[in-house]
């Protein structure tokens, strides 16, 4: 087993750290404010404005940094909730088994067949553009995939001798889940966390791109693409910068996930 980081994994890690830095320290290091109009519309990149300016003359780099905060943190929130719900239910189903497992499995199968985007659009029509509603819907639909994985992994672990031993010692079911099952199920779950995070950030950016996510003038990557989309017909690349930032983030996470999965595979 090779525990050293490969070149690809290092690159992925660097991209993730860069994004975390931008999300946490973005407002502090941004050269201009989130909504400050600082120059003419759609200026090309220059010394004052490294990535040029947007459709209202706001500094693109600054908005990209502010946008990192909204996009990355919102996606993290969604993923965290979906993992909390998904692993709880998954481990419960695997450890308790019997009819609880059956009922949960059936219910989740039904929910998994929902197209997430379509259901989110319906919810947003009813609630109006609402971030809490959006987070709840995406997190709940996403938690079904986490449930599947954590249940499958935990079932393999639940039949191990050390779990049996813990049960025979008379440990409570919660104790068994926390101390015996969860630590051993962690590597695949961490990899899945990365993939789910990618899905969530692409998803909320797509909704913002459709004009249904975060509302202006707040900066977020999908919305920035939408605001500047017309520039492309003048041969300007402005709308591509936030989209590229998003693609870079998901590539970075994928590289690390690939490495994690290869590492945890017994050879």
């Amino acid at each position, binding site marked *: 087993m090779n525990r050293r980081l490969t070149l690809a994994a290092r690159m992925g890690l660097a991209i993730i750290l860069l994004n975390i830095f931008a999300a946490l320290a973005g407002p502090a290091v941004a050269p201009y404010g989130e909504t400050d109009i600082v120059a003419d519309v759609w200026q090309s990149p220059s010394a004052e404005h490294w990535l040029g300016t947007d459709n209202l003359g706001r500094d693109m780099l600054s908005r990209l940094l502010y946008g990192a905060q909204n996009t990355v943190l919102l996606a993290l929130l969604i993923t965290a909730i979906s993992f909390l719900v998904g692993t709880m239910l998954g481990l419960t189903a695997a450890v308790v088994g019997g009819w609880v497992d059956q009922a949960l499995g*059936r219910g989740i*199968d*039904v*929910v998994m*067949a*929902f*197209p997430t*985007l*379509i*259901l989110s*659009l*319906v*919810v*947003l*029509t*009813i*609630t*109006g553009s609402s971030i809490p*509603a959006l987070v709840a819907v995406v997190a709940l639909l996403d938690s079904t995939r986490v449930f599947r994985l954590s249940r499958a992994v935990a079932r393999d672990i639940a039949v191990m001798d050390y779990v049996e031993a813990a049960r025979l010692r008379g440990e409570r079911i919660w104790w068994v889940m926390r101390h015996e099952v969860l630590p051993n199920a962690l590597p695949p779950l961490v990899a899945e966390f990365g993939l789910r995070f*990618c899905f969530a950030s*692409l998803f909320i*950016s*797509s909704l913002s*791109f*459709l*004009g*249904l996510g975060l509302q202006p003038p707040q900066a977020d990557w*999908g919305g920035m*693409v939408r605001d500047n*989309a017309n520039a*492309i*017909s*003048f*041969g300007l*690349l402005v*709308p*591509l910068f936030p*989209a*590229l930032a*998003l*693609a870079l983030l*998901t*590539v970075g996470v*994928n590289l690390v996930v690939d490495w994690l999965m290869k590492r945890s595979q017994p050879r």
Partner: protein
Amino acid sequence: MLWSLIGQRVFWGCVTLFVVSVLIFLGTEILPGDVAQSILGQEATPEAVAALRHDLGLDVPPLQRYLDWVGGLLRGDLGLSLASRKPVAELVGARLGNTFFLAGTAALVAIPLSLALGLLAALHQDRMLDRGLSVSSLIAISAPEFLIGYILVYLLSVHAGIFPALSRLTQRMDLLEQLRTIALPCLTLTAVVAAHTLRMTRASIIPVLAQPYIETALLKGVSRARIVVVHAFPNALAPIISVVMLTLAYLVVGVVVVEVVFSYPGMGKLMVDGVAKRDIPLVQACGLLFASVYILLNLLADVLAVLANPRLRHPK
């Protein structure tokens, strides 16, 4: 045994469809707040709110409203759009064909292409070709649809001027002109979908190629082409069929964003515009249509997989 298994899948498909339809139509009940009030704003007169509540059928008990709606649906009556006051069925009817045209063309290009590339990648496992395909498909998956769309617009429309940047399809165009109009959204969808399909195809063929009987055939001196087509392919068929079906299901939903990028007059654009105007009857109808096609394709993937792989007929 076989039929009862298929019957089971179909039954669960129907249950899913039922749950989705209930969620879509009773979302106005389940979600907090009064929809009519929130659409019209706080300053609206009580009369206006009451009128909108009536238009939305909110003054009728939920169960009866749901039954009325399902009844109307079966007769082809989807209610009136709030924004345009036209029958929803008319609005949807005008767009449905366009969406199927775009998604269908993309499927015709993407599926054969990605199956062939996935097979090639599996045969050249861990060599240059495989690595190249794996990196480029990873990039295509990681990129949001609108990035791929706008890059294509930048290259093929703004610079090369080959295809139009906006896909304003009309019925008066002949087929060739229509195909030219949808070229860019079609290419965008192909890129996204082919990347997924290629990866899944590769992943489902590689374990088959690692089986001992393939090695036996190889040692017997059977040609590579024959091994792939006669020995490996039938055993990889079940996963490949589900890959194709899932690709189609993915296309149905992926089409929404792409239609907006290219202002394509399809269902996806119609639905997104409806969400922005909070046109509840229109969005509900579009949502149910999209969801039904999606669920149907998923169901078909399950059933075909059972038919193609006898081992699935006897679950342990």
